[in-house]
C-alpha cells in the first residue's frame, strides 16, 4: 500500500480497522451515514442488523470491492493499520492480498483443491511464476491444515473444489486466502448456506483463526454472533447504533433498538 502513513501519535496499534466519518452512496441512495468504527486487531467482530442496514456495504467497502458497481461514491476514511484504503493511490491487488474475503455462498474455483489453494500465490507471485513443487506442496498442506481439511482431503487434492461438500467448500475458500498471508479476513454470512453441522464446523474454524487474523463477520444469525464473536456492532439504516463486547451487548444492550433487534422484535 502506498497511501501516506499517518503520524505515529495518531496510529492506534490495537486497531486493525479505523473507520471515520464514512458516508457511502449508491447513486442517490445513501447506504452509510457517518460511520465511525474501530475494529480491534486479532479479534472477531461481528456486524449485525436487519437486512438493508448497510452491514454488507460496510464490509465490502473495506476491500473496495463495492467500487465495481460504477455508481458508488464514498467519503470519509477507512484506515487499515493506519493507511487509508480509500486513497486513490492504493493498489487494489495489494489491498486484496492483505484483506481476504469469504462469501455467503461458497465459491471455490472450478479447479482442483490444490490449484484453489495455490491460486492466490500464483496471482501475487512475481511474474506469476508458481512456487516449485515442494514449496507448493508445503503451502497446500499448511493452508489445509489450518482450516482442518488436511486429513479429509490429503488424498484427493486433485478433486475439483466444486465437487466437495458445502462445508468443505467453504473451508477451502478460507484456506485459499491464507497462503498470501492476509492480516484481515472479511466474511459475509459465511455459514448461511451450510447445514447446522457445517455451520458449527466453520464457526469453530473461525474461532480458531482469531488472534492470528483480524476477522470482521457479517451475520444474520444472532446465536452465531453470540457464540462466535468477541465484539459486536449493531447497525440500523446505515448507522452504527451500538458497538460493545459481544457478551455485554447480548446481556445488557445499551440501546433500546439493539435490545429490540436482539430479542427478535424486528429483523
Amino acid at each position, binding site marked *: 500500500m502506498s497511501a501516506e502513513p499517518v503520524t505515529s501519535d495518531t496510529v492506534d496499534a490495537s486497531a486493525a480497522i479505523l473507520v471515520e466519518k464514512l458516508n457511502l452512496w449508491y447513486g442517490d441512495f445513501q447506504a452509510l451515514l457517518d460511520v465511525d468504527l474501530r475494529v480491534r486487531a486479532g479479534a472477531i467482530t461481528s456486524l449485525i442488523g436487519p437486512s438493508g442496514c448497510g452491514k454488507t456495504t460496510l464490509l465490502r467497502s473495506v476491500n473496495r470491492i463495492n467500487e465495481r458497481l460504477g455508481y458508488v461514491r464514498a467519503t470519509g476514511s477507512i484506515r487499515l493499520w493506519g493507511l487509508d484504503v480509500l486513497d486513490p493511490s492504493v493498489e487494489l491487488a495489494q489491498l486484496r492480498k492483505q484483506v481476504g474475503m469469504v462469501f455467503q455462498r461458497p465459491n471455490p*474455483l472450478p479447479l482442483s483443491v490444490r490449484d484453489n489453494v495455490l491460486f492466490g500465490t500464483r*496471482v501475487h507471485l512475481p511474474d506469476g511464476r508458481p512456487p516449485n513443487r515442494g514449496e507448493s506442496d508445503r503451502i497446500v498442506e499448511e493452508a489445509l491444515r489450518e482450516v482442518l481439511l488436511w486429513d479429509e482431503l490429503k488424498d484427493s487434492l486433485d478433486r475439483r473444489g466444486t465437487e466437495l461438500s458445502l462445508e468443505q467448500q467453504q473451508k477451502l475458500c478460507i484456506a*485459499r486466502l491464507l497462503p498470501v498471508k492476509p492480516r484481515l479476513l472479511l466474511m459475509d454470512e459465511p455459514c448461511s448456506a451450510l447445514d447446522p453441522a457445517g455451520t458449527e464446523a466453520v464457526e469453530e474454524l473461525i474461532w480458531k483463526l482469531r488472534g492470528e487474523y483480524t476477522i470482521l463477520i457479517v451475520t444474520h444469525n444472532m446465536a452465531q454472533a453470540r457464540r462466535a464473536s468477541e465484539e459486536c456492532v449493531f447497525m440500523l439504516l446505515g448507522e452504527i447504533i451500538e458497538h460493545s463486547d459481544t457478551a455485554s451487548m447480548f446481556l445488557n444492550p445499551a440501546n433500546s433498538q439493539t435490545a429490540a433487534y436482539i430479542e427478535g422484535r424486528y429483523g
Partner: protein
Amino acid sequence: MFEATAQNRRNRKVEGLFRLLFLWMTCMLILPVALILGVLIVRGGPAISWEFLFTQPMNNMTAGGILPALVGTVWLVVVALIASVPVGVAAALYLSEYAPDNRLTRAINLAIINLAGVPSIVHALFGLGAFVIFFRFGTSVLAASLTLAVMTLPVVIVATRESLQTVPLAFREACWNMGATRWQTIRKIVLPNSISGILTGVILEVSRTSGETAPIMFTGAAFFLPFLPQGVLDQTMAMSLHLFVISTQVPDVPEHMPFGVALVLISMVLAMNGISIAFRVYLRGRKKW
C-alpha cells in the same frame, strides 16, 4: 369425493385439444426440413459422384463438376473466420468482462444489434465500396471474405458473449477478491471454462456464411472461372453463387445438377453443425460445477 365433475371433463378436453394443436404446430416445423432434405437427396443424389466433386465444370457449366466452387467456398469461409473470430472474441471479452455500463457500451451494443440487422445485399454494397474499391483489394477472395466477416461479426460476438456469461459471476468475484486482475481472471478461469462454448458457437454461426450469396456476388465470387484460387487476391467461384447461376442464368443445365450442388452445400453446413454439436456434447459432459 374424487369423481370428475362436468367441469373437470370439459377442462380435460380443452387441455387435450391445445396439447394436440401445439404438437401439430411443432411437427409443421419439422416438415420443411424433412422435405428439403428429402427432395435434395432424391433429385440431387444421382448427380453426386467422385467426378462431380473433383472435376472442373465443362460445356458452359452444363456438365462436369464443381471443384472450383467447392474449393472457393472453403477459401471464403476460412478467410472470413480468420478475420472475424479474433475481432469478435476480443470484442465479446471486452463487453462481457471489462465494459462498464455507460453510454459508450450501450452505443456499442446498439451498433452490434444494428449490424446484425443489416440486409446481406447492403453488406455486399458496403464490401464493394470499402474492400474492393477503397482498399483496392479488387474483386477477390480477400474482399469477399472480409465482407462475410463484417456480416458474421455480430453473431460471433453474441455467441461468444453468451458462452462467457455461462461462467458464474461467483468465480469472477472470488478471483477479484483475491487481487486477481481482470485478465488473470479471464485467462485462468473464464476462458478455460467457456472456450468450448465459444468454439462451438462460432463454428455453428460461421457455417451459415458458406451459403451466403449476395455479399460475395459483387466482391469476389466469379460467374465462371475454371481455376482454383491461388491466393487471397484471386477471384473464385463459390457454391452458393454457382447454384444461383446454373439454376437461373445458364440454359440447358441437366436438372439434377442444381440439386446436386444444393445437396453438397447443405451437407457442408450440416457437417459443420454436426461437428460443433458433437464437440459441445463432449465438452459439456466433462464440465461440472
